[in-house]
Each structure stands twice: as C-alpha cells, then as structure tokens.
C-alpha cells in the first residue's frame, strides 16, 4: 500500500491488487477467489490503509469486507454488514459502489435493489438511507440488464450534505440535505426506450463523474448519450460531436480536466466500434473528442469497458475490459500499455 501507484481491480473471479514502483508492476490475488467483486475502495483518510471490497457469491450472496493489512486478511463478519431491514421486504442482491463520504468516518455503498447504505463510524454500523428508499419514485424504477441498482455515488468533500447518485434504471438523483430528500436531476437526458423520451426520471444513466476542478461541472455516460452539466448535475447538454457512438459505460477524468470514454457500437452491439479499441478524450469539456490509439489494438479488438472499469488520478488513466485486459496510460492518454492480458472479466478499476 506504499507503492507509487496502486490499482484495485475487481473481476468476475476475485480482487487483484496491483502496485507500481518505477516502471515495474507487481500483482497479487485473487482475493475472494471465485467470487465477483463489483466494487472496491482504498480508504487513505486520516492515515488509514483500509481496503474495502464487495465480493459477491453466486450462491451465498454479497457482502462487504475490509482489510487493514493490504489484503493479507479480510474481515468475514458472522452477520453481514449490509442487510435490508425486514419491513422493506427486500434482500441485498449486490453491492455496486463503495464511496467515501465528506467526513472522515463516513462511507456510502450503492446496492441492488436500488438503495444506499451509510456508515458514520467507519464501517462499524451501517443503515439504509430511508430518504431515498421512501422516495415515491423508488417503486417505479425498473431493472436494466445488470439489475436495478444505485451504482454511482458522488460526494462533495466541501459539502457533506451534497450527494449525487445514478441509478439504472432511474437516472440521476441528488440531495442537498444529506439524504433526507432527493430530487431527480435528468433534465435533458434522453430515455429513447420510453414513450416520453425526456421523462423526469427513468433514464438508464450508466455513470456520472464530477470535473476534478469544477465543483458544478459533471459528465454523464448514458444508455445512448454523452452529456455535460455545468449547473451541479441539474440540467444536461449533449456532447457527442466527434464520437463514433454515444453508447458506453465507463467515464473518467484526470486532474488536468481531460475526460475519457470508450464508445461501444450500440446497446445491441456491445463491443468497441469497428473492432478497434479506441479511448476518446476531450480536453474542452466535450466540445470536441479525439481518438487515442497509441498502444491499443486496432484490429479484431471487440472489447467492452464496464461502468466502473475506468479510473484515473493525476495524469494517469487505467481501464479494464470484459475480456480481462488491463491497460494504463501515464501521460493523460497519449500512449497506452497493456499491464495484464488474461484476467477474468474486469468489473472495476480503482486507482490510488
């Protein structure tokens, strides 16, 4: 956990921890061998080195676990940390997101069925966020291919009461009061699969991210559609000019403000356009896009990058594919190297 760069790579068969010192990568794992790991997070706040992970057993369900020793041992609590209360009449299906709250002991997880759980004591106790669960829209959200989940949680270090989330299929919601009340925030985002293509909610938003330096600027990868908001994720404008397709899942931004996506052909053709693995980068907040190909296969490359399988920090970008390839760039996407080529299906790439 003291490497120059650490990656937590969650896959269909476990969690891998990669570390780089100089130009050399090391990798160990899989942790939770045989289990899917859809979410992971390294908490380095207030001197911690705690790795959180959300392994999902096909048979025995999903759970939340952590390690304070770099993955040598993991907690395995008798009673699971994340459980739906009896009165909800629901049971946990999967954990899609682990996100730090604004306060040092606060964490959120986004789960399926669509809900948020939070802890105020660094994971000792967790509770269902009733404000979202009791929202009148909740009963009208519908599952997508991956289920019905809160898969994205964006918190604000400067404002603990401000949280944005994304739900498939429900759209973007945000709270300004710490989660007591939530409002749909999908104005301008299309839902081509509904009779009203611009409903208040019901969009299949695949991922949202905040601009690294601009508090009110957000980017959104939709189920067909790429958008930007400059008013705190309230209204959205299309930014698709120059892209080969507006379908995709992952989206990430480096500290310079460059934004990266990997377009796929279409929802019915979920693989990279024309069999070329191209990352598209915008350096002007979506006014224009450029394909990045240096070091990426440009023939017979039918890849899919899932919603959490892109990550970045400083000027480094990493992404993993469903075919188990892990790529990285240390120069804001100008060139890429393949770091691993035969991992299990990659669900999430977290960069530290």
């Amino acid at each position, binding site marked *: 956990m003291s490497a120059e760069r650490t990656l937590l790579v969650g896959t269909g068969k476990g969690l891998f921890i990669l570390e780089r010192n100089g130009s050399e990568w090391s990798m160990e794992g899989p942790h939770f061998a045989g289990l899917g790991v859809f979410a992971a997070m390294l908490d380095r706040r207030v001197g911690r080195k705690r790795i959180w992970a959300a392994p999902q057993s096909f048979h025995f369900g999903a759970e939340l676990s952590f390690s304070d020793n770099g993955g040598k041992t993991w907690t*395995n609590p008798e009673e699971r940390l994340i459980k739906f209360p*009896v009165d909800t*009449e629901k049971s946990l299906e999967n954990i899609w997101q682990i996100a730090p709250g604004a306060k040092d002991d606060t964490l959120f997880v986004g789960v399926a069925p669509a809900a948020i759980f939070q802890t105020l004591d660094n994971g000792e106790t967790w509770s269902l966020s009733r404000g979202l669960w009791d929202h009148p829209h909740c009963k009208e959200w519908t599952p997508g291919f991956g289920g019905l989940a809160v898969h994205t949680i964006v918190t604000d270090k400067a404002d603990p009461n401000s949280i944005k989330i994304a739900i498939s299929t429900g759209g973007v919601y945000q709270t300004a009061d710490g989660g007591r009340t939530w409002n749909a925030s999908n104005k301008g985002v299309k839902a081509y699969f509904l009779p009203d293509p611009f409903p208040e909610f019901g969009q299949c938003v695949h991922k949202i991210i905040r601009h690294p330096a601009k508090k009110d600027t957000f980017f959104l990868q939709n189920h067909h559609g790429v958008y930007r908001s400059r008013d705190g994720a309230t209204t959205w404008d299309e930014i698709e000019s120059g892209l080969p397709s507006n379908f995709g899942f992952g989206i990430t931004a480096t500290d310079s403000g460059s934004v990266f996506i990997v377009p796929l052909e279409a929802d019915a053709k979920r693989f990279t356009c024309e069999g070329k693995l191209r990352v598209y980068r915008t350096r002007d907040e979506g006014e224009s896009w450029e394909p990045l190909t240096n070091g990426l296969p440009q023939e017979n490359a039918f890849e899919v990058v899932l919603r959490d399988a892109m990550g970045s920090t400083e000027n480094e970008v990493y992404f993993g594919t469903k075919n188990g390839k892990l790529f990285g760039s240390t120069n804001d996407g100008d060139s890429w190297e393949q770091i691993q080529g035969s991992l299990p299906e990659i669900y999430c790439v977290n960069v530290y």
Partner: protein
Amino acid sequence: MPTTVFLSGHLKEFSGGLTELDLSGPHSTIGDVLEQLWASQPALRDRVLTDQSEIREHVNIFYLGRDAKRLDGLNTVIEPGGEIHIFNAVSGG
C-alpha cells in the same frame, strides 16, 4: 433423536470446518432445525438465507432427499431423527 445436518464443503468456512452436525431439538420443522443451527454456527445464517429469511435462490436444502423448496420451505414438518442436507446449487459462471 437428533436431526443430522450435512453441509456442503463450500460452507465449511462458515461452520468452523464442520460438515456434519447433530442437533438434538426439539424441533418440528426445518426452520426449527436451522434456528438451532444458527445458534451454534451463526455465520451460516446470512449465507443460507436472504435478508428476508428465505432460502437463497442458489442454495438447496433437502429433507430426507427432497428439496425443501418443493415441500413447504422452512415450514416443512419433519420427524425426529431425520437428515437435512444444505448444498450450494449446481449453478454459477
């Protein structure tokens, strides 16, 4: 007579390594037996049952060789001295 519970090997990490337990009762249903099982092996509960105390979709519980989901689930009435098997289903990817 005790009811004997057999666990699949995949559940050993939640049962202290045990795969066979004799539970003396009294119990009149599969659910009664499992409540006694959870008392001695509490980590098994959340792996076998959902948050709503239902048998997980990909876990099978057999009583005298019959699938409890095709009987009366956890309310299935049992006789003293029977055998219960808990397996992970033959499913997955």
